[in-house]
């Protein structure tokens, strides 16, 4: 179709491109510039008070024990919650895809419900579920003779508790994508395998998993990107404690930038986060490419 009308192009593409350019690309570039300055509370009133300090924010970051703690916590969270939520999602999707299951819609809806609900609200609910004395979790575990645990107050358990809640909150989303992926696998593959006497496990290993590689790659990347941005759960449930054991990178960035107004430093944290996410995406793409050709 021929359409080289410049006026129409400006009218249709202009508003969105202008908005994205001014309120997305310019901020990204500015953040990069700010990360090389000492922009702080004094610069807030008058931007010219900020001076270029080269790489000092970044070098300082690498010597900042609190940043390493935040990085370590976030990595721990991503490495634990990421694979766990992918596995739970796949498991749920396969169960719901089983031919003998009826009322699929109701089960799917139940598992999906946490996804659409407001994170802040459910984080508050879970905070009380984890209550050491009155919480539902300790009550349930009591039936199995487990002694009460102060989930959010114990440095060892606080992050795993946040992991559990996050997996509960998110697995429904990936489950839906996995269901779509499973439905895309031609059923004659399974029929042929059944005729040849392949067991359920063999079918899973040599049909389901390989056919799901693209879906799994997509899911692992979006899950990882989302989990690296961990913020609201610790903000509500632990405020980063106990002993900074749940302090996340985004939370540290938020504190430095918007509580102490160390914006130069905070921008550097944001870029390190971006770099890590970028690296994670590249590594996962690489691994899965290898898997595909193996």
């Amino acid at each position: 179709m021929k359409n080289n009308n410049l006026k129409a192009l400006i009218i249709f593409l202009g508003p969105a491109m202008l908005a994205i350019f001014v309120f997305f690309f310019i901020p990204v570039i500015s953040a990069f510039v700010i990360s090389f300055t000492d922009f702080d509370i004094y610069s807030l009133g008058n931007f010219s008070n900020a001076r270029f300090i080269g790489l000092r924010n970044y070098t300082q970051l690498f010597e900042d024990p609190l940043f390493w703690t935040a990085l370590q916590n976030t990595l721990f969270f991503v490495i634990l919650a990421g694979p766990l939520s992918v596995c739970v999602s796949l498991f749920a999707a396969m169960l719901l895809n089983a031919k003998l299951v009826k009322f699929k819609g109701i089960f799917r809806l139940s598992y999906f419900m946490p996804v659409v609900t407001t994170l802040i609200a459910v984080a508050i609910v879970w905070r009380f579920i984890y209550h050491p004395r009155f919480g539902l979790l300790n009550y349930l575990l009591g039936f199995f003779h487990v002694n009460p645990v102060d989930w959010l107050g114990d440095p060892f358990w606080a992050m795993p508790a946040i992991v559990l809640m996050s997996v509960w909150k998110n697995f429904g989303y990936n489950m839906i994508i996995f269901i779509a992926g499973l439905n895309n696998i031609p059923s004659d593959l399974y029929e042929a395998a059944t005729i040849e006497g392949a067991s359920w496990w063999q079918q899973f290993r040599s049909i389901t998993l390989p056919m799901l590689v693209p879906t799994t790659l997509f899911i692992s990347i979006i899950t990882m990107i989302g989990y690296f941005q961990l913020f609201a759960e610790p903000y509500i449930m632990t405020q980063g404690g106990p002993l900074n054991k749940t302090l996340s990178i985004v939370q540290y960035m938020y504190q430095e930038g918007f509580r102490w107004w160390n914006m130069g430093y905070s921008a550097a944290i944001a870029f390190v986060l971006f770099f890590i996410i970028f690296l994670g995406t590249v590594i996962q793409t690489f691994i899965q490419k290898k898997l595909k050709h193996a």
Partner: protein
Amino acid sequence: MKKVFLYLFLSVSAILTLAPFFWMISASLMADGHASVYPPRFFPDVTTLIQFQTLFTRLNALSNFFNSLILSLLVTTVSLLFNSMAGYAFAKFRFSGKDKLFTLLLSSMIIPAQVTMLPLFLMLKEMGFINTYMAIVIPGLANIFGIFMIRQYALSIPDSLLESARIDGATDFQIYWKIILPLCTPILVTLALFTFLGTWNDFLWPLIVLTDNSMYTLPVALANLMGEHTKDPELMMAGSVVTIIPVVIVFLALQKYYIKGIMMGGVKE
């Protein structure tokens, strides 16, 4: 036998998944202190709406509710307009550099929003928009994911349809308004749903740019309340119910579109 086991497992998992919501609703209907008991109560011993009353009278949650509602509707409407126009242009216009521009947009989706937050805050501060609705609307005017979704959908509309409309004398705007938009209705509903829920549920950005209780959206108000009422689970549960109920209703009404939207995003690869 296998079937019974499967159903049992599915049902138990469904009950466990929904249990937090059940307890939330139940506790929101209890009087002060009645949720802090051992063993936990699954049903209120005495049902009362006192928590909701406190919320809406003393704590002024109604204004927070309206902030959330108006902002979500506003962002949804404006971004739908901008995204659909751009999506149409990317799908059907021919211009030099189109593919490059589109690739640039797509690859920049990997940049986490947190990177933009500091400069965006400073920009909005200079414009005098901090603590106003504009602070939420402006960053939500258009988004790359939305443009992408609409473009993918609009690509499937046959060019011949647009050609014949043009021969009949339709302008670009008429084509967009009378052909593209109606044919794109399913994806528009999906996107509207994503945007509405996304704006309603958003936390970090509203927390940064809204500084006054009367301007807070529900999640920010709730987080703020949590700081003061850590020991009032009943009140906090009522607040959570008020925050969650609208999104659940919207979702249940349009869930088909939501699920389809996720599947589209997921299978594209």
